[in-house]
Each structure stands twice: as C-alpha cells, then as structure tokens.
C-alpha cells in the first residue's frame, strides 16, 4: 500500500516562492510575511499541515477554528483584489484547498476517512466481504424470507433484528473510538488496519439500516 507523507516539511525549510525569504511560522507557509506573496501549494501539503494541527483522529475544534480564521485573514482572495493576476490565482488556489481542509477536519467522520486515506487506507470502496457476525446475518436472511410468506411475523422479526443491529453498531462505534485514541497515543499502524476494516463493517451496517427503514416504510405507507 502506497503511503502519502502526512508529516509536513518542517516549516523552517520552506522558502518564499517569490522572494526566497525563509518561512518560519505556521501562517508564513501561506503568505510570505516579507513580501506578501501567497505561496503555491506543494505536494507535501495536507489538510492537517495547512491548518497547523497534528495528523490525529482527535482534534481540538476550537484550535482548528482559530487556525482557520488566522489563515483566512491573510490568505483570502479579498486580500489580493488589487494584486497582479498570478498572485490572485495563488491565493484562490490555496484558499480553496484550505477551505476543503477545514470542512474535512471539522467533521469527525470526514476527518477519520481522510487520515486513513493519507495513510494509504481506502475506506470509501467497501465492496469487500463484511465481517457481520453469523447470527445477525442469519436473522437478516430469515426476515427476508418471511417478508413474502408471513408479513406480520416478518415485521416482528424485523424490529428484533433492528435492535440487535443497533446494539452491534454501538459496540463497533466504541471499538472504533478506542482504536482512534490508541493511534493518537502510539501512532501504531495496527490500529489503522483495525480502523479501516472496522469502518467497512460500519458502512455495511449503515446500508443495512437504510434497508430496514425502507422495508418498514413500504409496509406502512403512512
């Protein structure tokens, strides 16, 4: 699995693309404090690095917002309206990236998926076999068989299945949260693997919950 570097280049090594001034502070990676030029995005930039936060699952939302506002104040295209067009374009590009970064990191689910992605784990494509426990799978199979034969019994079993599903999902969410905390402490790749496979199961559970909702809605049009 290919791993995208997630740790930013130490800021002290960066130099302004316009006047070659070394860029030392967190804000300076965006706009050179010497000449005022917005800096081009580099392949090493991640959503974490541009917002000056560590690449972890847990994050202090107030720090994230504070950093975002700090970047916004110096980088937003409104600050470059009367500048040359190439500098305007740099601000536009970089600000678009920072906007995406903030949207992604602000949402715990998007943030988790993004961190796994930069670490080389794809969570969106969850076509692999599920790790649903056998008894849940069996219940689901029975409900589907009963739907045509005995709708009343099917409905009863569906509600039982729904609550078992919910319980299983809650247990999984707890495990996921534990693995996230574990990774933040140890940066161990074992946790990442567990998370990636756990999220595939979670996606499967979510789609099954939607199926249950659909069946319930069809049985009771009102």
């Amino acid at each position, binding site marked *: 699995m290919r791993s995208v570097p997630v740790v930013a280049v130490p800021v002290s090594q960066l130099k302004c693309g316009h006047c070659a001034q070394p860029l030392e502070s967190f804000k300076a990676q965006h706009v050179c404090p010497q000449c*005022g030029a917005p800096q081009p995005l580099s392949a090493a930039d991640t959503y974490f690095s541009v917002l000056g936060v560590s690449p972890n699952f847990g994050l202090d939302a107030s720090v994230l917002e504070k950093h975002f506002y700090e970047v*916004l104040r110096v980088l937003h295209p409104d600050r470059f309206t009367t500048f*040359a067009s190439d500098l305007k374009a740099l601000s536009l590009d970089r*600000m678009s990236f920072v*906007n995406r970064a903030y949207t992604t990191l602000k949402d715990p689910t998007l943030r988790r998926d993004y961190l796994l992605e930069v670490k080389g784990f794809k969570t969106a494509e969850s076509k692999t076999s599920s790790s649903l426990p056998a008894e849940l799978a069996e219940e689901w199979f029975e409900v589907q068989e009963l739907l045509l034969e005995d709708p009343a019994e099917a409905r009863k079993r569906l509600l039982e299945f729904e609550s078992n599903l919910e319980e299983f999902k809650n247990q999984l969410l707890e495990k996921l949260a534990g693995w996230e905390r574990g990774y933040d402490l140890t940066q161990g790749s074992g946790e990442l693997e567990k998370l990636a496979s756990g999220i595939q199961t979670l996606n499967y559970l979510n789609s099954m919950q939607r199926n249950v909702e659909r069946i319930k809605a069809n049985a009771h049009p009102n």
Partner: protein
Amino acid sequence: MPIQIEVLNAGTPGLQAGPIVGIDLGTTHSLVALVKDGRPQVLNTREGKHLLPSVISFSDESAGAQPVLGFEAKRRKVRDAGHTIFSVKRLLGLGPQDVQKISDALPYEIVGAEGEIRIKMGSQTYSPVEISAMILRELKLSAEQALGCSVSRAVITVPAYFNDAQRQATRTAGRLAGFDVLRMINEPTAASLAYGLDRKRQGLIAVYDLGGGTFDVSILKLHDGIFEVLATRGDTALGGDDLDQAIAQVAAHEIQASQGIDPYADIQLHASLLEAAEKTKIELSINDESLFSVSLNGTTYERKWTRGEFEALVLPILERTRIPCMKALEDARLKPSDLSDVVLVGGPSRLSVVQSLVENIFGRKPNASMHPDEVVAEGAAIQADILAGNNREFLLLDVVPLSLGLETYGGILSTLISRNTRIPTVARETFTTFVDHQTGVDIHVLQGERERVEHNRSLARFKLKGIQPLPAGMPRIEVTFLIDADGILQVAAKDLNTGHEQAVEVRPSFGLTDAEVEKMLAAGLENAEADVEFRRLVDARNKAEPTLRAAEKNLSDAHRILPSEDVKTIEGAIAGLKAALAQNNIQNIQDAAAALNQCTVRLAELLIKDALSSSAKNPA
C-alpha cells in the same frame, strides 16, 4: 516585520484608480454607497435622492433622446406603460422557458430569441442585461457627480440564491456600464456586514431578506470581524412585487366581474392597477385602512382594504419563506434558540405581517433596527472598503447556494460541489473518451439539488477539444471546477498524459457569449461618446440660457440708455442665440452666447452705474 505590499500590489494602487463603490442593484430600486471615515454613506443620485427606482422609460423617441431613469421614469410607469421597464432583475439570467409565469404578470412585452429573452419597447428590443447596465450606468454617473471624480470600480450585490447564470448576467451588466466589478457579494451577507460594523455584535444570526423580487435567508457566525456564512436558502422569484400582484389581481377580478372587461388586456390599466396596489401595500404598513382607487375609462374603481384583509391575502405568499428558513437552520445544524438575533432586510420587512411571521418562524422578535432599504448598499460599500485594503479587520466567508454537478450516463446529476460549501472552492474530475481516436469530450454542468438532469438548471456545456487521438479510455483529462469568491464557476482542463493545458470551450446555456459581450462593450463606447456630446450640449445650453434671459429682460432699459444702433446689435445677437439654441449645435450656441455677452458688456456697465446712482439718490 514590514509588509512590503507595494512591491506586489503593482499596477493599480488603491488611490490612483479612484474609489471603489458598493452597489445594491435591486428589483425595485438601486443604490450606490461609499465608506467615508470608516462609515458607509449612501450617495445621492442625480435626482438628489438616496434611492434610484430601477425603472427606465424610453418614451421620448426623438433623435438623441436618452432614456429616463429613476423617479421620473417611475412617474411614467402608468402614463407611458408601453415604453417603461421595471423589475428587470426578475428576468436577469433567465431563458425563454423560465419567464412565462413572470411575463404574464408584467405589463411589458417579452420576446424570446435564440435562447435569449428580450424586452420589446416600441421598435427596439433590449436584453435584461442591457437594461440593468443602464441602471448601473446611472448609478455610476450619480457617484461621479456626488464624489467629483471618475468612478470605475464597484462591488455589486446579488441575491444569495442567484445561480451562476444570474451572477454572470449581473457581472456582464456591470462591465457594460463601464465598471470593473471587483466582487459580487450576496445581499444578506452584505447586510450582515453593515449590521456587524458595530463590533459588539457577535454570535449566530439569521438575516431574513425579503426584497422587491427575491427572498434570501442566511445564517451567519460573526466572530472577531469574520463574517462566516454557515448556510443560505432562498427563492429568486418571491418578493414584495408578489404582494402588489396579489392586490392587483383582486382588483382585476372585481373589475372583470362588474364591468366585463379584462383590465390586464390594457397595458396602461395593468400598470395603474400595479401602481395602486403598491400604494395600498405601503399605506397598510402604516395605517389600518387604505383606499384602492383607479380610474377606468370614465368611471372609477374603488375598494377599501383593511389591514386584516390584506394580511389574509398575502400571508399564504409570505408563508413560502418559512421552509427556506427552517432548511437554512437545518443546514447550519442549529436550532432557532441558538440564534442571538434575527435581522430584517428589504422594504417589505416594514410590514407588520412580515415581522410577526418572522417572529413565528424563529421564535424571537426580529431586529428591525437596520434601515431596510439601505443596509445592503452600505454592506457593499464596506466590502469595497475591505477590497481596497482600508479595512483589514473584517472578512467575509461565503458559501455556494446551490450544488454544482455534471450530467452522467442516463441523465442523472452527479454532484461535484455540494451547496453551502465555503467559497472559493475547487473540485477535480478525470474524463476519458468512449470511442477510439475521439478528440473531443462534451461536459454538461448543472446547478441544483434534484436527481434528474432536466429538473436542474443547465449552466453551461463545455467541450474539451484537441485531445490526442488514442484508443478509447486511454486519454485522461483532468477538469478543474473552481468556484471563485464571486460564486462564479471557472473551468480549466489538463491532459494528465502530456501535462498540457487543454482547450475548454464554454457555451453558457443562457445569456451572452464573450464575443457578444465584447460587441456590446464596443457599442457601449459609441454610446458613451454620444453621452459625452449630449452632456456638453446640456452644459452649453445651461450657460447660454441665463445670458439670453438677462439680455431680454434688460432690453427695455437698453432702449433708454443706449444708442439705437447698439440696441439693434443686441437684438441681432439675441435672435442669433435663439436660432443656435433651436439647432442644438454646441459650437453655434457657444459662439452666439459669446457674441451676446460681448455686445451687452456696455449695457451691463451702464445698468450697474444706473443702479448705483439711483440707490445713492434714494437711500433706503
């Protein structure tokens, strides 16, 4: 550390390029404002008012005659309904199939031509963009007169729920009017800037903006000078105009029932019903009763409206604002109780029925302390001040109001950028070919929230051209969709195999191609020259006419105190100036006025002497 912005800020440093004004281009009226000493001020129009009614009248068809705008045009709305255009903002950026419902409610004739709509005025037709440009131009001239300098840069506001085509149309109108449109900002966001100018106002607010023809609701977070839009919803075809229409509709039905005539068949009568309806609406915002009255050929139709009747009539229309408000809160993941204020914007927000509805929707008394007509223009001026670099404390962060997507196989919309995404924003998508040696790929961009393509708004079709002829599926063209800070889409494409930039041909679904805009700009310059000539003529007349009046007035004294041949010379010069004025020739007027001045110098001297000696003889 010194920030040497001067180094990069080459070309157009703020002061040399003149001021940046803020413009509210409204459905019913427009305003221009500028920040002076840190406070936004609405500039006077050439009519000496704050508001410029967005009305334009072409009634005088004589050669060289200019259309009339503002209050003067508004007065002609009824008298000369066939030559007067209003509420043109409702038509901006629309295609022929969009306007059917609107055009039935407007007394002027709308014709569709090649995917574009035009308004018919006598023998001429005008596009909504051209009419909007004329309004903006009048504001430009007003600002120049008020400030005594040339004004060529502006921030123009648009309804937050305007789509890309409507924004493009507004920007084109600005260009045609001679403006460099530095930024377009959303009206409720502009209002929030004026509201938040007082830095003590912080927290989560809702802006309920019911204008003449559009409705927007935005939820914002105000924090330390950052104005962050969290969500926005709206309806670009709902406003105070609809309330007028409803009242006029009642009158039309009653006239039809009692007199057997359809008043809407007569454009003048249609216009007078709308005018009377507007008057009734405004009166009912102050009084409990209003008399609706129009004269029909010989007779008069009168109807007394109580506020209760009016409210019952319009409440169902106003209720249409409720769902957008709830959805905006939902999008922002907030409850009404999370808000610290609800700000009212727009003329119709003066109506008590609107205020009580808003209170009912948000569960709190709305804040009606802002000037509902002027707050948007003031906000535009503040944004202009930010862009000029004078205000480094404030910053707006806005969102895209509608999702942007691409047509995929089977006519399904695939969303690329979802609504309420912060702007600027970017999305990338890789395309390939389906046939061997295919060199072009068509891309259809749409805006909207519905699943099927035909239920969304077609924005543009792009053609990727000059792709290397390769087996199907081999080319990889990465297309970048960028929504800039104006909320307008920009597209760029790159061939990932070669790294070359790819040609993108843009065809807007409605409105004007770049070539058409260039053509109109060139024509606009010709018009501008004609305008300059016209203004010089007016100046020459204005200088000559007082000279003529003074000479005529003193002619009897001249007979008394001047030799008869001198009087004859003066009489000749008077006749010469009158003739020159009748010809409207600038040079002749100036020459004749100078000649008259020349030969009346002696008369003036004698008259002054005369006056002095008589006052010496008869002290008061």
